[in-house]
């Protein structure tokens, strides 16, 4: 077995893994905040829809969601999308799924804020938007960083599920090589890659947490 060949191939797959990871975070973090607003909305119908969305996303396998997102355009709308849609479908499914989890984390953070912060801002004449952006959100972010780190680390490993749509990320690549060369080595190396990637993620998140330690 050529170790260089394995590493090169896994490296290519790893690139796809990182892209799935980054795009998912980029879109699901803001979408999650939006969903959490919906979940906390005073309007019954918006709150109910958000609740249902979160419930479905958390209550069904991510693998199934990937398949549904991929096939839905054809079976529901009769659309024929090219094979480039595979990758898009992976990103859409991951974003939808992670936004649901992030929404609940945001909600927990927002609801844990003392009422006094809102009242102080109100009496001082802050508008609702100013209160949220300047007073509430920064404190919420500090509070929710640990659970966000958890989800982020899970996401790194979940990217391997992209194989169900034949998007060749690192794990798909490792399996292919493992099967063709009848050795477990590529899978073990892939595991090491995931582990190292998560070490970097955890380190980065710790840095962010520390940077917010200037207040309590």
């Amino acid at each position: 077995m050529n170790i260089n060949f394995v590493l090169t191939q896994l490296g290519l797959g790893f690139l796809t893994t990182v892209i799935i990871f980054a795009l998912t975070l980029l879109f699901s973090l803001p979408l999650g905040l939006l969903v959490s607003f919906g979940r906390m909305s005073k309007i019954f119908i918006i709150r109910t829809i958000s609740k249902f969305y979160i419930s479905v996303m958390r209550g069904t396998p991510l693998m199934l969601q990937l398949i549904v997102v991929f096939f839905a355009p054809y079976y529901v709308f009769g659309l024929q999308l090219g094979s480039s849609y595979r990758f898009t479908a992976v990103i859409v499914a991951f974003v939808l799924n992670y936004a649901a989890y992030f929404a609940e984390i945001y909600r927990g953070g927002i609801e844990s804020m003392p009422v006094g912060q809102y009242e102080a801002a109100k009496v001082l004449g802050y508008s609702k938007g100013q209160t949220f952006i300047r007073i509430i959100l920064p404190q919420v972010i500090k509070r929710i960083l640990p659970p966000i780190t958890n989800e982020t680390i899970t996401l790194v490993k979940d990217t391997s599920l992209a194989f169900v749509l034949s998007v060749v990320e690192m794990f798909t690549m490792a399996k292919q090589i493992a099967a063709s060369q009848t050795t477990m080595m590529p899978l073990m190396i892939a595991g090491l890659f995931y582990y190292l990637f998560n070490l970097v993620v955890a380190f980065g998140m710790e840095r962010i947490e520390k940077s917010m330690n200037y207040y309590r």
Partner: protein
Amino acid sequence: MKILEIRDMKKSFGDLEVLKGVSLSVNEGEVLSIIGPSGSGKSTLLRCATMLEQMDEGDLLYLDEYAAKDVKGGKSIYSSKLDLKRIRRNFGLVFQNFNLFPHYSVLKNVAEAPQLVDGISKKKAETRARILLDKLGLSDKAEAFPFQLSGGQQQRVSIARALALQPKLLFFDEPTSALDPELTGEVLKVIKELAKEKMTMVIVTHEMHFAEELSDRIIFIEDGIIQVEGTPEDIFKTDNPRLKEFIGKFGK
């Protein structure tokens, strides 16, 4: 000139009638203290006056302008959001537990609202904030964060924060109740200074001695209505048995 006027304010939470018709007014330069046992309605009165809570019935006026008006049939109708925003600028509120913004430095706590509300420059707001902090004996704490301060210092910062908007009336909601006994003095001293400068103030307090010394008028509230109102002298020489008992309990 009447800074604040409340007419027949009523407020219930579900079946619990907390305020049963309270009327009072505060003139410019006057210090009014509100005393009364826990659950008497004095906090609700303050929260309704500062519009953190909506009253059910009654009128609320600042500088003779209606913030809420009782229409016939007994229901308070509040003015438009825009009007309320302007009316709110007449008063400031100092909370029992400070409610400082923990992620802001002391300076930013004091200087941000004037920038957002009055639209003055950051530089000007910070210069003014430093003058205020200096006045309240906090000039060396401008760069500190609230968690680094004692309770008394935090409460002084929150007074500075309220003063930065130059309110015509300052409400205090039990400003020393969350403080260790040895820290109440520094906060009371600041409030006394303000009284000397003829700042109009409404103070909900348990500090009887302080209320007696400082107030032009004192209101004793119990069971959601004003039981006794008068000068400190009237209050502390009262014949009202409930008030006597209350003052006795808090041992002046």
